[in-house]
């Protein structure tokens, strides 16, 4: 396949997200300006100007009208996707690390980093349909995990919140009371910071990637460990194909061994694994730096990766990708 290279960001990419229809791709980077691209040809549609710090995360509503972005400038902003105007700003005491709309887009879960005296926390905010009614207040604030919470997502039917972070433990919280329901087992769980988390299309299982060079597949309801995928490099980003049983891991440390004269430059790769057999089925090379973000198009026919090199690479699969057999 011939990937489409999009160099809109001057700084490393942090997050990528497709909208529900799969025609728009939102990219966040450390350069303060989230960008939206057309997902078929990579043409840039627009940028959201307003943040004053690295943008760590974003999520788009199901109807693709609202965008939520979380940034290191201690704010989470709500934008109009089409025009790029800011609709609302949530202020926090510390950088926001992860945002996600709930099913129905009426709520959002936001995580904030530990900063000075503040511990890291998970906030649930109401998102009003009409911007004039939007308020700052949190429905629920959960504190407890030590260290940064890198990702928090909604569980099935918005009943639970799943969080993962620097303490390498995955926790499931009740979304109404804030009570801790389950924790991942320390023996079989990750050993180092969990950097990324992605849910399956039907929400029954999710994948976590960690700096301990592995990714693990868990059941959403019971938090039992189902599968483990091992790599040779720390995992920064994970993605699951909505169409086939494939799991993609991206990562890599900036190896000081890579010199500029290495003719194999561009060798940071996104590794594809068979979800069930846990075996590697291939790798897609091309990035000049570690891969920080991965996202699959909801139709499963393309995926994009964002790297430390500031490039977003959009890949449309060749027909023989769909016929891969181990």
């Amino acid at each position, binding site marked *: *396949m*011939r*990937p*489409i*290279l*999009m*160099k*809109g960001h001057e700084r490393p990419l942090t997050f990528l997200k497709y909208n529900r*229809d*799969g*025609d*728009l791709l939102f990219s966040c980077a450390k350069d303060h*300006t989230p*960008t939206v*691209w*057309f*997902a*078929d*040809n*990579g*043409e*840039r*549609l*627009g*940028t*959201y*100007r307003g943040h004053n710090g690295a943008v760590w995360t974003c999520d788009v509503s199901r*109807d*693709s009208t609202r965008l939520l972005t979380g940034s290191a400038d201690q704010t989470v902003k709500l934008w109009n996707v*089409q*025009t*790029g105007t800011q609709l609302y700003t949530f202020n926090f005491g510390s950088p926001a690390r992860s945002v996600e709309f709930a099913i129905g887009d009426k709520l959002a879960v936001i995580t904030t980093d530990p900063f000075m005296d503040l511990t890291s926390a998970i906030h649930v905010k109401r998102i009003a349909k009409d911007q004039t009614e939007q308020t700052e207040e949190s429905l629920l604030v959960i504190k407890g995990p030590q260290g940064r919470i890198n990702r928090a997502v909604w569980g099935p039917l918005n009943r639970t919140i799943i969080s993962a972070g620097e303490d390498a433990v995955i926790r499931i919280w009740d979304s109404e009371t804030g009570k801790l329901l389950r924790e991942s087992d320390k023996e079989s769980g990750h050993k180092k910071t969990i950097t990324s988390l992605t849910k399956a299309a039907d929400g029954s299982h999710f994948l976590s990637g960690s700096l301990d060079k592995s990714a693990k597949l868990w059941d959403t309801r019971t938090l039992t460990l189902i599968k483990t995928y091992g790599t040779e490099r720390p995992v920064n980003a994970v993605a699951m194909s909505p169409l086939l049983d494939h799991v993609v891991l991206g990562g890599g440390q900036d190896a000081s061994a890579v010199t500029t004269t290495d*003719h194999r430059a561009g060798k940071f*790769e996104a590794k*594809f694994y068979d979800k069930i057999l846990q075996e*590697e*089925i*291939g*790798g*897609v*090379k*091309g990035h000049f730096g570690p891969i920080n973000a991965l996202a699959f198009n909801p139709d499963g*026919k*393309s995926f994009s990766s964002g790297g430390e090199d500031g490039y977003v*690479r959009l*890949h*449309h*699969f*060749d027909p023989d*990708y769909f016929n*891969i057999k181990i």
Partner: protein
Amino acid sequence: MAIDKNEPSKLRWGELEEDDDLDFLLPPKEVVGPDENGIKKVIEYKFNDEGNKVKITTTTRVRKLAKARLSKRALERRNWEKFGDAVREDVGSRLTMVSTEEILLERPRAPGTKQEEMKVAGDSLAQLSKGGAVLMVCRTCGKKGDHWTSKCPYKDLAAPVETFVEKPAASEASVAAPGAGKGAYVPPSMRAGAERTTGSDMRRRNDENSVRVTNLSEDTREPDLHELFRPFGAVTRVYVAMDQKTGTSRGFGFVNFVNREDAQRAINKLNGYGYDNLILRVEWATPRTN
């Protein structure tokens, strides 16, 4: 003296030739539309900084994108206006480019896997039987079915050792023995750290990593092949078959890599590559790849 500032400085009406007095007009832009390969040429004429008329030919390949069946909403979004930093963007901006390299989903290679061995065995058997009525068996190597004993590439050894793993062990043993046995003197070729374990070992290992290149153009020589294959890895030997009478290439040659993986990558990338007006065919030099 009023100087017309709109005309480029070099062109003064007095210096124009008689028949070129319309020189300051540029011919119109031509577009040679996408042909069956999708190649589109746009020929424009401009005046460059020195006032010379220049012809700029832009050749682009128009590719059909993956067919995306967009929903109604998605179609509406396609027509949205650009905003933010994208406002002043034109269609030709360099932000989004299609990669010039073809990137494949590279399957992991494990040379010792059962799968490959079975496939290889199947191939060799098939080849032996396909060889026609006569099965050529070489007494030296036994496993090869494509040459007679006198033509065996492994002439100089009693029997080739089966796997690479065994070879270093065998040669190490042979190095140790003379050292211990002869006592004072160990010949240079058998000393520890000798570069060549045995001459034929090196050669054979390289022959297993030998790549055959066919459909070379007449002018292709060894340095060209070396330059072409060097990016894939260390190349020990290049050879281009020459016609002694005319001095031109016979259209094929061989490249030996140090590493097998480099050879595999070279085959993947260069097979079908257009080089000097011909499409190269690049494959393993021996039919079977065990």
